[in-house]
């Protein structure tokens, strides 16, 4: 592989007291790919993602994001990443438009530039009618799309999605994945955590996390071949179960 690497993680360790949430992680993410982080709840997916976003400091290890070091260049990294949490991170008591305006504002997009972009976005989301409606009263699927679009509003080259599809019905999930594909096609690197096995199939490469460690990392096709499994669900069960049994 001679593709451009955009995220490089070396020997990443994160401990909370005696508990090791991330145990010596090593991986690389290529520019423009959809990189999936798969694992059970508590496997350390969210912890690792928070470190990459600068929301949490690692105990030790090196992380490089688009050539910036997460210890020294935190401010620069903040400008080039987008982030969407599983809770969608929208203000329920603000309208759709006010939410867009606020988050655009904190990334320094305002005035004419903001109005033009916001208009285009609202049209693209088909949300003209609800632009002045409080976010609290729009459907969950719309909130999810809005949250993703807001995370992408400042056009970051890398976007982190933390279980963005949890609690959403399958049809809305598929529509959401279409948005992810569109973003990836335009060259954005998508880093996504999920615990839905079917979603792992949509990723270019998947890292399976188990108890703070990376149990396997490859394309979905190779993972299935190596494990001799029909689908990702089987791959996951084969990789994760034996270790759990030791407990």
């Amino acid at each position, binding site marked *: 592989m001679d593709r451009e690497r955009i995220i490089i993680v070396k020997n990443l360790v994160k401990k909370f007291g005696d508990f090791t949430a991330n145990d010596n992680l090593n991986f690389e993410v290529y520019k423009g790919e959809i990189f999936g982080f798969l694992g059970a709840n508590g496997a350390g997916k969210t912890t690792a993602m928070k470190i990459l976003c*600068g*929301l*949490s*400091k690692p105990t030790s290890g090196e992380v490089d994001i688009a050539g910036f070091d997460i210890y020294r260049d935190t401010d620069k990294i903040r400008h080039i990443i987008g982030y969407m*949490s599983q809770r969608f*991170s929208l203000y329920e008591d603000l309208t759709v438009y006010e939410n867009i305006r606020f*988050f655009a504002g904190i990334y320094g997009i*305002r005035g004419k530039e903001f109005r033009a972009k916001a208009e285009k976005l609202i049209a693209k989301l088909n949300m003209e009618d609800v632009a002045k409606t409080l976010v609290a009263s729009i459907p969950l699927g719309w909130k999810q799309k809005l949250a993703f679009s807001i995370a992408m509003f400042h056009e970051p080259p890398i976007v982190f999605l933390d279980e963005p599809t949890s609690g959403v019905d399958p049809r809305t999930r598929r529509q959401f994945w279409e948005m992810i594909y569109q973003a990836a096609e335009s060259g954005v690197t998508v880093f996504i955590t999920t615990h839905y096995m079917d979603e792992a199939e949509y990723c270019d490469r998947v890292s399976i996390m188990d108890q703070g460690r990376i149990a396997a990392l490859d394309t979905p096709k190779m993972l299935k071949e190596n494990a001799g499994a029909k689908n990702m669900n089987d791959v996951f069960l084969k990789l994760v179960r034996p270790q759990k049994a030791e407990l």
Partner: protein
Amino acid sequence: MKQFLGFFRKELIHIIRDVRSLLILLLIPFLMMLIFGYAINMDLKNAGIAVMDLSGDDMTHEITDKLLSSGYFELQDVITDPGRAEELFKAGKVKEILVFEQDFARKFHSEGIAKVQILTDASDPNNANMLVNYTNGIIANYLLQQQVSQFLPLQVQSSFRYNENLESVYMFVPGLIALLVMLISTMMTSISITREKESGTMEAILVSPLKPWQIVLGKVAPYAFIALSNLAVILLMGTFVFGVPYRGSIALLLGLCVLFILMALSLGILISTISSNQLMAMMISMVGLLLPTILLSGYIFPIDNMPVWLQTISSAFPARYFITALKAVMLKGLRFMYIWKEILVIFGMMMFFLIVSIKKFKIRLD
């Protein structure tokens, strides 16, 4: 700066959209001032008394008239049977019974000694104490007038400095400011920050290029404005409605209040960094701060009357220093050099809260 203004605008929208809370926050000072100024009154007025006059001469009549014309007492009953006294107390109609012995005037003039007994209902000890003091004072005054012509070895003249009419509202103004500033600056700020943690929006803000100080300032500024407006309401109502005097420098008074507001805001930020949800933030503010502010700051109960261990605890609460200093400036007209210690303590507490919160905030969301 522009980023900060955007943040500030968002916070204002939050506050305005929550009309009910906003109304409560803005109306509280009016209501509290009215309640404390008119309804809750520690002064004694028209306490029901009964008289058991076994003598019934001019002198006992004069003393009774003096008492009743003072405005503090109201005659409920005249009794002759000691057993009736118990009934009256039990019925709650009278708080005090005055018993004049037989041949009161005659004994006074011939023997130089006449006895009057004061019985009070001490189920409310403070009140009973006050009644006895007032009664004693009035009787002593009467005796003084009787003996004008004669030589008096000792004369007592008392004067209540800084609050001549012993108006309760003078005391409530500083206490109320402390209470409301804590309520709005500390509690509302801590709740509004933890709300963002709960809803996950805090993460979205923290991954953005916004600086921590911009986030904190944006969250705090609107509540500082509300606290300032409440301060204005209390101070203006205090002087124009209740006639509380501001004897010291207004600049020093306002400076002291602003410092206290800043301290309360820092405390609010600190509480929000240690609480994981809104409920916890509210409980810490309510139980940990508002109650001690009411009970231990000298606002209602004098600190000097507390046992030493309680006094020590009370010195950990900033409101104590604020109320002491504010009273000194407001009522005594003292200048900075007399209250610098209190100011220093409040300032020190503010710096401590700020430094600890910044340290906690740096670790972000672990």
